[in-house]
């Protein structure tokens, strides 16, 4: 039971964030790329004003796994870097906080592209 509740919270909140994205795909002309950009920028804003961290406290991975969580992580990184390094932290914080995710995505994608064969177009 102790494990079940956090899983359920993550499922519900993460699912809701995805469902909202689907509403935008179905009812507006927003392309998937635009939705991703909007989610990240929205995450920075909500993270910056302190709302998103509360959602993370509640939903855990349900809030950190969607791309809004990535945006919120950028804001958090900048805040910590500014507190530590001042003005220079404005520039370093975002990349520092997202380094692991972006580094992994770049390197794994390169390896994946080298190892696997593209699917047939047919």
């Amino acid at each position, binding site marked *: 039971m102790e494990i079940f509740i*956090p899983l359920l919270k993550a*499922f519900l909140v*993460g699912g809701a964030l995805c469902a909202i994205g689907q509403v935008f795909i179905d009812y507006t002309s927003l392309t998937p790329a635009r939705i991703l950009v909007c989610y*990240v920028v929205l995450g920075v804003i909500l993270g910056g004003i302190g709302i998103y961290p509360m959602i993370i406290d509640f939903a855990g*991975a349900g809030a950190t796994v969607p791309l809004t969580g990535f945006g919120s992580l950028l804001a958090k990184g900048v805040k910590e870097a500014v507190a530590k390094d001042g003005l220079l932290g404005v520039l370093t914080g975002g990349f520092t906080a997202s380094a692991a995710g972006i580094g992994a995505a770049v390197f794994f994608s390169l390896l994946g*592209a080298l190892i696997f064969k593209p699917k047939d177009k047919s």
Partner: protein
Amino acid sequence: MAFTPEEYNKMSQKASPNSKSYKNIPMAFLIGGLVCALGQGLMILYQNAGLEKDTASTAVSVSLVFLSVLLTGLNVYDNIAKVAGAGTLVPITGFANAMASPALEFKSEGFILGLGAKMFIIAGPVIVYGISASILYGLIIYLFRLY
């Protein structure tokens, strides 16, 4: 018969098949929710293994990115995405898929301008606007001493 553009729009809307939102949205919810629940499961696993909360969260992201690239390479992810829509787009696995998929597809156009450049065709804008938003936010909290 002559129609005004509005009339024509109304008619074509009536005639075109309903977009399957009644099915798309629950599927996005279900599969996106499952991806996040998987992330939470990993989170609990890593924290039980002794990782601190922030480190565990990073490890979850890296794990999901790895899994997504693997499934993209095996051509499984794109098949799930066909039914899941935003359910596989919005989680960080969608970001990884948006890098791995064009990297693989455009390998045939060369390793530099094919694989290397096309990898960022969607991830690029996300990073550009995400980082820029974070820098604006940083400037604001620096100027108003909100940190």
